[in-house]
Every structure is written in structure tokens, then in C-alpha cells.
């Protein structure tokens, strides 16, 4: 049975294909997103400093984050990247156009340095944002400055470098979206790799009159994972052989691809898992001193918090995981090197991490979503009432079912992670040895799940 047999190509439906290939629907969504992004910056700079009444805080850190982690990433993978506003001004400048391909744009089109062609910078960028998140997430002015910094770096990257270097190598958000997009039930792939091989011009990479060469520096003919495909849809437009498919597929299909597993992605998994644990403790836990330490940047307690934060993410979690991997390797008699086993099994943490973030997001999304309505009516907290909703009171939604949802999501993540561990082990070992190899990793996943259950639900 070929992989295509497990997939449903949505482009077989003419209406879907027309909607995706046509530039206007995407442009409209991008324009709306960019306008919202700029209003978030404006509200952060001149609006009320009270986070719960400021568009920037409510829309970025409650509405957008909840939609991203609960819907966009789990269902559409990098779908958000397709309409993300941050790289747009730079890309428009680079292309000399906002809609279709033009001949002249403004960019030095430099190549990105080879040694930086990985996601370590994204790992560092996310870790820094996460380290200061207690302040960033609550102070509109700081949020605005961070968003402006993203915009500034994205425009700078587009002006100096070719294509979407910011998205591919720098964006702190893009790194984890890419990691978790491997789980999504959607993908863009070629229908027949032989067609691509025979197509010498490779317009999907070089561009044509119909569209840009892949802004994410990918050759779609060799695409096996979602990780770096920004679903910008350009290849759908530039392929002269109608050889691209937008597939519905089984969940986590990319995890079953042994090729392309790397240490930078493995550490992204640890960063995300560690951050979910720490966020749950700081933002939802009952420890006031911990919360105060996370807020009081530069103080002694904050330095201790920062050391603990970095220690957990880059020390404790990887070390415990390494121990689990080493134990499994020794017990099963695996011939793989410890480093390779460590990197390979780290992909077990991809479903565990996504479900951890989903469970964490559930805890505040329903509780705080009602802030969205008054903020729509009064985005700056200036006393306006544009849509008559300015006085809608805060009211948590679905509080009675959220713990059950969280528990369900965490257990599903654990089961998924264990299945992934076993499947990864089975790539190189027979069934019984594979199970033995995977067991300590499964134990690690159980411990993390128990910790999350305790922090989020207990």
C-alpha cells in the first residue's frame, strides 16, 4: 500500500484548490492578521497598562495563543505560518509586491550562514522569551516592545537575507510550531516524486511567473516532514504539473519517518516540555514566592528562578531522559550509539509536549476568554464601547469540564508518546527488544505526565 493510499488530497476538490491557489483569500487573512498585530502593538504602547483590558495582552496571549495551541497547531500544523503577520512587511519589501511576483524587490538576498542552518537560534530565542514571560505576558508595554522587536528582526532579515530566513531560522514561535506540526493531520506533499525528478526547472524552488520559489528554502519534491514547510502555498502555484497535494493524513505521520532527526529539534522538545512544566507551576500554581521571583526580573530571587528554569530545561530533563535512554539501550542490547538513541527517542516528547501545552492552554483559555468581548469594544481600555460589549463581565467558561479535558488530553499524550517510543525502538529492533528499549522512556513520560497532572489538575 503506498503512502498516498492513507491520504485524502483536498486539492481534488476544485473549490478547495481554487481557494488555496488563488492569492486573494490568503492575502485577506494576512492583511487582517497584520492589522490586528499592529493594533496589538499600538494598544500596548498607548493603551491601558491593565493587561485584562488591553487588546495586545488579551488577543495575543489569550485568544491567539489558545487558538494556536488548541486548534491551529494540532489540526493545521504550520497553518498559522501561512498567514502570520510578522514576516509580511519584510517579505513585501523583498518581493516588491504584496500580491503576485514582481521582478524587482528590495533585498541583498544574502545566503544564511551554513553553520546557523538549524533551529538553535530559535531555541535560544524561545528560551529567552519564556524566561521573561511572566512580565511579557502581563505588561502590555513589554508585549508591544517584544512584538516590535520581532517585526524589526523579520524586516531586517528579509532585507539582508534571501527568502524567509526569519521564519526558518529565527522565529521563536516558528520553532515549536514546526516541531509539533509533525503531528498534524494535514500536509503538503508532492503526488509523484518521479514527476519532480523529471522536472528540470524546479519552479517550486526557483519561482515562476505564477509564484515565488519556496520562501522556506525547501524543495517540495524531497519533503517528508511538515517541520519546515510554512504552508505558504507557493508550490501549489508554481508547479506546472499539478503535482502538489494538500493531504489529510493520520495523526503524527511524520514521527514515523526515521530520517532527519536532529539534536537541535530534540532540544526543542525538551525546551517546550520544560517550559510547560515551569509555566504550569509559575502561572497556575499556588506558590506566591515563585510567582514573585518570576516577575521581579534582575532581583536575587529572579536569578535563582532563571538558574532553575535553565537548569530544568537544559540540565535536569535531558539528563533524566538520557538516563532512561541509556537504561533502555543497555537492557535491550541496542547497538545504536547513545547520542543517536537520545536524539531519536527525544521525538517521543513531541506528542507529550504538544498535549502538555494543550492542557496548560485549556487552563487559562476558557477561564479568560471572556476578556475578548470587552477588549473588542474597547481595545485600548480608553472607555470606548464600539460594539456594546465593553461592560461584559469576566466569566470563566466550561470550568466544570476543563479538568476532565485536561486529564483526557494529558493521558492521550502519554499514550501517544509511549506508542511513539515503542515505534521508534521498533525501527531498529525486534518487537520484544524494542519494548524493553522503550520502557524506561515510557517511564520518563509517565513521570512528566504525573507532574503535569499534579500542577494543572490536582
Amino acid at each position, binding site marked *: 500500500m503506498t503512502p498516498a493510499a492513507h491520504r485524502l488530497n483536498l486539492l481534488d476538490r476544485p473549490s478547495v484548490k481554487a481557494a488555496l491557489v488563488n492569492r486573494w483569500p490568503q492575502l485577506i487573512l494576512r*492583511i487582517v492578521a497584520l492589522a490586528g498585530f499592529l493594533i496589538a*502593538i499600538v*494598544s500596548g504602547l498607548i493603551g*491601558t497598562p491593565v493587561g485584562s*483590558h*488591553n487588546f495586545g495582552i488579551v488577543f495575543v496571549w489569550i485568544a491567539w495563543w489558545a487558538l494556536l495551541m488548541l486548534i491551529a497547531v494540532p489540526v493545521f500544523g504550520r497553518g498559522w505560518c501561512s498567514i502570520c503577520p510578522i514576516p509580511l512587511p519584510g517579505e513585501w519589501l523583498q518581493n516588491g*509586491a504584496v500580491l503576485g511576483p514582481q521582478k524587482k524587490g528590495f533585498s541583498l538576498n544574502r545566503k544564511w550562514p551554513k553553520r546557523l542552518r538549524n533551529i538553535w537560534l530559535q531555541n535560544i530565542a524561545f528560551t529567552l522569551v519564556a524566561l521573561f514571560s511572566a512580565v511579557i505576558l502581563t505588561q502590555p508595554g513589554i508585549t508591544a516592545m517584544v512584538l516590535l522587536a520581532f517585526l524589526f528582526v523579520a524586516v531586517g532579515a528579509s532585507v539582508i537575507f534571501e527568502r524567509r530566513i526569519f521564519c526558518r531560522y529565527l522565529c521563536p514561535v516558528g520553532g515549536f510550531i514546526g516541531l509539533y506540526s509533525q503531528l498534524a493531520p494535514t500536509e503538503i506533499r508532492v503526488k509523484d516524486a518521479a514527476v519532480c525528478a523529471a522536472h528540470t526547472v524546479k519552479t517550486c524552488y526557483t519561482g515562476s511567473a505564477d509564484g515565488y520559489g519556496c520562501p522556506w528554502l525547501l524543495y517540495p519534491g524531497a519533503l517528508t516532514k511538515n517541520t519546515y514547510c510554512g504552508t505558504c502555498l507557493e508550490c501549489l502555484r508554481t508547479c506546472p504539473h499539478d503535482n502538489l497535494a494538500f493531504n489529510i493524513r493520520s495523526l503524527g505521520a511524520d514521527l514515523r519517518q526515521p530520517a532527519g532527526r536532529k539534536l537541535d529539534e530534540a532540544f526543542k522538545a525538551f525546551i517546550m516540555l520544560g517550559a510547560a512544566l515551569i509555566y504550569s507551576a509559575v502561572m497556575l500554581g499556588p506558590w506566591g514566592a515563585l510567582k514573585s521571583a518570576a516577575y521581579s526580573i534582575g532581583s536575587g530571587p529572579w536569578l535563582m528562578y532563571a538558574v532553575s528554569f535553565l537548569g530544568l530545561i537544559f540540565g535536569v530533563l535531558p539528563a533524566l531522559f538520557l538516563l532512561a535512554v541509556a537504561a533502555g539501550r543497555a537492557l535491550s542490547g541496542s547497538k545504536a550509539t547513545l547520542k543517536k538513541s537520545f536524539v531519536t527517542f527525544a521525538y517521543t516528547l513531541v506528542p507529550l509536549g504538544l498535549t502538555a501545552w494543550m492542557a496548560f492552554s485549556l487552563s487559562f483559555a476558557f477561564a479568560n476568554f471572556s476578556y475578548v468581548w470587552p477588549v473588542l469594544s474597547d481595545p*485600548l*481600555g*480608553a472607555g470606548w464601547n464600539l460594539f456594546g460589549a465593553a461592560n461584559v463581565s469576566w466569566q470563566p467558561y466550561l470550568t466544570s469540564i476543563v479538568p476532565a479535558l485536561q486529564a483526557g488530553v494529558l493521558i492521550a499524550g502519554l499514550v501517544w508518546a509511549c506508542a511513539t517510543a515503542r515505534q521508534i525502538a521498533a525501527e531498529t529492533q525486534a518487537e520484544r527488544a524494542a519494548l524493553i528499549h522503550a520502557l524506561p522512556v515510557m517511564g520518563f513520560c509517565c513521570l512528566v505526565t504525573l507532574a503535569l497532572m499534579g500542577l494543572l489538575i490536582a
Partner: protein
Amino acid sequence: MKAERFARLLVLVIVVGLPALVVAARSASRGPIELRGVMADEGGWAPAEITAQVGQPIQLRLTSDDVIHGFAIGQRDWPAVEVLPGKWTTTTLVFDRPGKYTFYCTRWCGPNHWRMRGTIEVAGDETATVSEAPPLYVTLHLDLDAPHPGDVAPVEKPSAARGAQLNVAPQIAAGAYREQRPAQVWRYLRDRASSSTLTDQQVWDLVALAWRSNTTTERLAEGQKLYVENCAACHGETGKGDGVMAASLQTANTSDMPGLIGHGAVTPIDFTDARSMLGANSAILQGKIVRGGMGTGMPYWGSIFTEAQTWALVDYLWTFQFD
């Protein structure tokens, strides 16, 4: 090319126009005076100084940028306005006399809550200004900072009710008691021949009766309300100097926790301490309230309380000594 032009126009209108519209609308909506409150450590009221004209209404839009605050004008019986984070409340003020009025926060918002004050300078016909008599502690030339320990103290808390049952007139002229110190009055009564059959404690009960006879239930109720709202956070509801803010006053400027701006470590006075209180008089207490503690962290309330309110508060403070 036509499509590209239209797309650019769309970008211009929505991406540039919409945020620009928001900024413009914000600027245009600044009608009345916007008064923003933040905790005193972060700056207090902004603006802290407002000008107005006698008889001309000034409209204030109030909001808080951090926690819940309250807004009131000192020495005016206008109701306080609640100032909520991120919400706007509008209030209109009209002053009938020129002068410098103090507005202040009425909600305990932090250790430096009392510093959250501002002024409204009301201009107008200066001849309409009513000259007020100086407070009693000034006319008596009292040294408010001098120690005033009592040399005698009761064994148990004196009771006006028990004093009344003795059927002995305390013989303190109405009004004069504000200048009298309870310890001195006790000595005076103790030395009287008519008190020779009374025990020391019974004499103290007579002193309590004298103090109770010079106030009213209504004044005590008003004093209690003022005390609970303005004093209890430091001095404690029971007057022992153990209010919820007392601990943070003691750690002032000694840790990372926000302390008291511009003051060293202080301990709120214990109103139940008989030695200290019974050597003072009402005029001293009035002075402490009106002038403040001068470097001890005790706020000045002269611009906030009316004279009647201050005396009501003083009367209530004596209830920590006398039942």
C-alpha cells in the same frame, strides 16, 4: 498589475489605516481631565496637580492602571469614587470656594497608600476664603514629638459604666478635657478628699466616665468608621499597632519588598499601651493626626479630615483605654 495596485491599496487602508484610526480616535477621545491612579511606589496619581475655577464644574475621568483605588476630596463630604483597573469612571466636581484641595486614595493599595495624593488648586475670589482658627495643639504650643509617658496606670481597663455607678461627679469642665491628660486627672481626683473612700481602680473608672461624658455615641461611631478606613491597616483593628501593613512598615527599606518611601523602619503606635496613652491628651492626638508623625511614617491627615472628623477620631482612640 491592476490587482497588485488594488492589493497595495487594501494594505494601505486596512494595515495602515486601521491602527492609525485607533490612534487618532484615542487622541480625539481625551475630552475631560484623565486622572490615572497607580500605587504610590509607581508614581501615584497622574496628573497629581489639577487646576480649577470656583463655580466651574470640572469633569474627571478616572481609571486605575494597577489595583483598585478610591478617589475622594479631603475635607469634603462628597462620596468616594471607586477607581477600577482598566475601567473608566467619570465624576464632576464643583468647588464653591477657592483654595488648595487634596484628593486622595481611599482604598488600602499598598504600604505607601497614604502618599497617593494630589491637589486641586481652585482659583477664584480670594475674599470668599474663610479663615480658619488654628488647631488646638497649635494654640497650646504643644511639642508633639516630646515623650509623654504617664506615671500611673490602671490595673485593668477603666470603665465609664462602672464609674457612673459610683455616683461621684468627675468634675472636669466640658471642653477642657481635651487639654487634660488622664494620668494628671487621675492624680487630681485621687488627691481629692471626696475620693478618699475610692480604690485606685475606681478613680480610674471616674476618669473613663469623664472622657465618655465628653463625647457622644454618634461621634464614636464616626471615629470608628474613620479609624477602620484609614488607621487600622497600620495600627490594627484592636489598636495594638499590629495592622496588616505593620509588618511591611517594619521591613521598610530593608529588603526587596516595597517599603515606606523616604522613611526608616517604624512601628505603629500601640493605642492600648496605657503608659504612653494616659500621659497624652486629646490635643496631642489631634496634632499627631493633623500633622503626621514627621519621619515616623505616620501620614498627615490635616488636609483630609475636617476638624470635626479629627475630634471624632480622637474620641474613638480613647476607647482603646476606656470602656
